[in-house]
Every structure is written in C-alpha cells, then in structure tokens.
C-alpha cells in the first residue's frame, strides 16, 4: 500500500544524525512548516546545515533553531528579521557559517536539485560581489554565473491539502519554495492542513505530485510557550 501518512513525528526524524542538511520551505510565515520545525528542535539534532530563504522572525518557529544553537550553517537569501542581532552574533563569533545568494538563484538551485540538473548558468549577480570567485561565462554576449544544485537529506514542507499518496496542494502565496523543497530532499516530511481521500484533489491541480512526499502529517498547532523547551534541555 502506498500510504505516506505517519503517526510519530519523532519517527520521521529517526536515523538523522547531527550535521544533517535540512531544507525548510516557506516564505516569511506563509507556507512555513512550524510543527515540523518544532519536531526538528525536539529531535535534538545539532549542527544543522540549514537551507531556508529567510532566517525566521521573533523567537519561535525557525528562529528558535538559532536561539537553541542548532544551526552550523545557514544558506539563504535574506538573513534578517527580528533575530538579526542573534544572527550577527552567531556569524561574527564564528559559531555559524553563512552563505547568502539572490533569492531566484536559491530557488533555481533547489529546483535543479530536485530535477537532476547538477549545474546551470544564470545572469543574476554577474558583475557583482556575489559572483566573485565564481566561474563565469558569456552566452549571447552576456555574462553569466555558474551555480550548482542544492539538495538535502531532509525537506520540511507545509501543504494545504494532501492525500495518502503524498499529492499536495498549497494555498495562495504559501506555495513559494514548497514544491521545490519537496522534490529536492531525499526525505521529504510534509505537514498538511487537511488529509483528504484519494481522488478528492483534482489531478490537474496537484501542485506537488506524491512521488516527492515521504512522510505525511496533519498540522497541529504548536503552543507558543513550548518553543523554549530547548532551554531546559540545552
């Protein structure tokens, strides 16, 4: 039986060791898999090689991973937000490595990772600081930068509807990086607002085909005050 539904969040992270490369979808709070981020925090996995467009905000959600000192490297396009001071401290003290790139380059590198394209050329960032040290090449008279695919051991995804095959839909601007992360991660863990019957999602309007989903959960709200649990165990 092809059934991606799981009961145990802890089980979904079993076998994932410290230093794992983890990709988290979402843009701002839209399409951000907060329940899975909390489970990642609870798993105790350290030295995370984190790929996420943003660095989170406030002290909960994604930001809690940084407060808990779990992130060894952050790959993103925009490491700002309310935890900017913390990020600055982590980076300048050498406790966290930071790789920043243009948002479209990040999206395309993740898309390439899921689609079996190891590298591509993009015009973005040519002639800027970001392209320094990178391989460049001219096509049609215009300068381009070589960028490589990004994949991950774990991908965390937030869907709107899902069925047991793992087919997903996303709501409005909560789609963003989600289908790309689903495809690029070896093990894609999904939380969905609702798990529906097979056939309830119109095949024409599946936003991420089930083949990319490995573990599927129904979203449950994370109590605001539980985000700081790590403090007791840190």
């Amino acid at each position, binding site marked *: 039986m092809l059934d991606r539904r799981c009961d145990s969040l802890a089980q979904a992270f079993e076998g994932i060791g410290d230093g794992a490369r983890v990709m988290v979808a979402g843009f701002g709070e839209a399409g951000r898999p907060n329940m899975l981020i909390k489970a990642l925090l609870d798993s105790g996995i350290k030295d995370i090689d984190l790929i996420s467009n943003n660095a989170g905000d406030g002290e909960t959600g994604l930001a809690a991973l940084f407060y808990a000192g779990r992130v060894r490297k952050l790959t993103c396009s925009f490491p700002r937000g309310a935890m900017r001071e913390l990020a600055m401290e982590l980076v300048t003290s050498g406790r966290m490595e930071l790789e920043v790139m243009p948002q479209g380059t990040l999206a395309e590198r993740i898309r390439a990772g*899921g689609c*079996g394209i190891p590298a591509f050329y993009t015009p973005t960032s040519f002639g800027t600081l970001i392209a320094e040290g990178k391989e460049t090449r001219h096509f049609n008279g215009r300068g381009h930068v070589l960028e490589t695919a990004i994949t991950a051991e774990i991908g965390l995804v937030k869907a709107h509807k899902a069925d047991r095959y793992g087919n997903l839909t996303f709501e409005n601007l909560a789609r963003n990086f989600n289908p790309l992360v689903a495809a690029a991660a070896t093990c894609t863990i999904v939380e969905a607002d609702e798990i529906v019957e*097979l056939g309830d999602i119109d*095949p*024409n309007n599946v936003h991420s*085909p089930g*083949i*990319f989903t490995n573990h599927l959960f129904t979203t449950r709200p994370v109590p605001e005050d539980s985000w700081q649990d790590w403090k007791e165990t840190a």
Partner: protein
Amino acid sequence: MTPLTRDGIAARLAQDIQDGWHVNFGIGMPELVANYLPEGREILLHSENGILGMGPYPDEKDIDWTLINAGKKPITMIKGASLFDHAWSFGIVRGGHLELCVLGGYQVAPNGDLANWARDADDPLPAIGGAMDLAAGAQRIYVMMTHNANNGAAKLLTSCTYPLTGAGIVKKVFTDLAVIEVTDDGFLVTDMIPGLSREELQARSDAPLAFSDTIADLTDRAA
C-alpha cells in the same frame, strides 16, 4: 523447452516490482507489464508526457484524447493520479525519483550498457524520445527483451555494437529464456526456463554468463 511468451516475460518481471514503487514502462513490450502487476501491491505508473497514476486502457466509448500515454495510446487515470508539464515530468525522471523503469532492449552489455533506440549510428531519422532520460534517471533500469534477435543474433554482448541509450545503467534483464542480473562482475543468471541447459543459454549469449547457486524456475512466477 518452451520460451516464455511476451506476456510471460511481462508476468515474471511484474513479480519484481515492489509495493509502493513509482514505475515507468517504456513504449512497446514493457507496456505489457502493467497487465500483470501483483495483487495487493499499490504501484503507480508514470508516463513521461505528464502523469503519475496511469490506469488501464479505456473502453472504446470512454476514449478521451487528452488522456494518452507516451506511446500516444488512450489511457485512464486512477484515483490519486497527478498531472504535470513536461519539465516537471522529466524532472521526476532525471531527478532519480522513479524507483524503476522498464525498457525494451536491442543489446545489453555486462557493464550495464544498453542499446535500444537505433540499430544504425548513421540513421538519417534517429528517434530518441524519452528513453535516454529514463535510462539516465530512474533508480533502476530493468530490460525486457527476447533473448535473441529474430535472426538468432545474441543480445547479451560483451559490448554493445549499436548506439547506446545509456552507459552502465541496466540492473536486470528479463528475457524469454532467463532472468539475468547485472553485477559488478557482469551477468549473473538467476532464473531459467525448465529444459534449458546452462550451456545452451551461454551458447545463445555472446557475453560470458555466471550462474547463481540456485537457479529459479522462470515459469514458476510467469503467467
């Protein structure tokens, strides 16, 4: 000795497809495998023109020409099917997401090389289609073919003489005479039809064959 029919090969191959796999059956003989998927296993069929969850051929009266497979034959969709454009479809293929692809074959070599798209490197009208992407991308390539060409020529060769579809990608070969794994040490026969000797099978093959300790009866698990 009675070699398997095409349906017999399809039925035997189907036994090796695991529950929960996403599979692409190449155009031609591999399409037959869909008719023999073991009961109790949920196997999703991919067609490279943009679907996961392909169902059986429809009744004549239910044909809808927006529902076709890569061979341009009418299909149906199962519950839980998904549709996508060609870029995502080949993203699924190239990105290594399909657990299995079954392809037809002209020639297979012990290093896993497969030739299945052209008999002549100078064909003025080469037709590649999606086979090269499938060969390069699927997690496993099984090849389904008659053991010998119509003229009796061997298809298991020490090296392919026809243009390659993919280099070093075949995992198993299913023929009308045997099942042959492609290992780091070359061809390893695991199943044979009754009444065929190892020497006869070797005589019908160009490349050297090794034989596993116990050889299964090929007809045991074929229709």
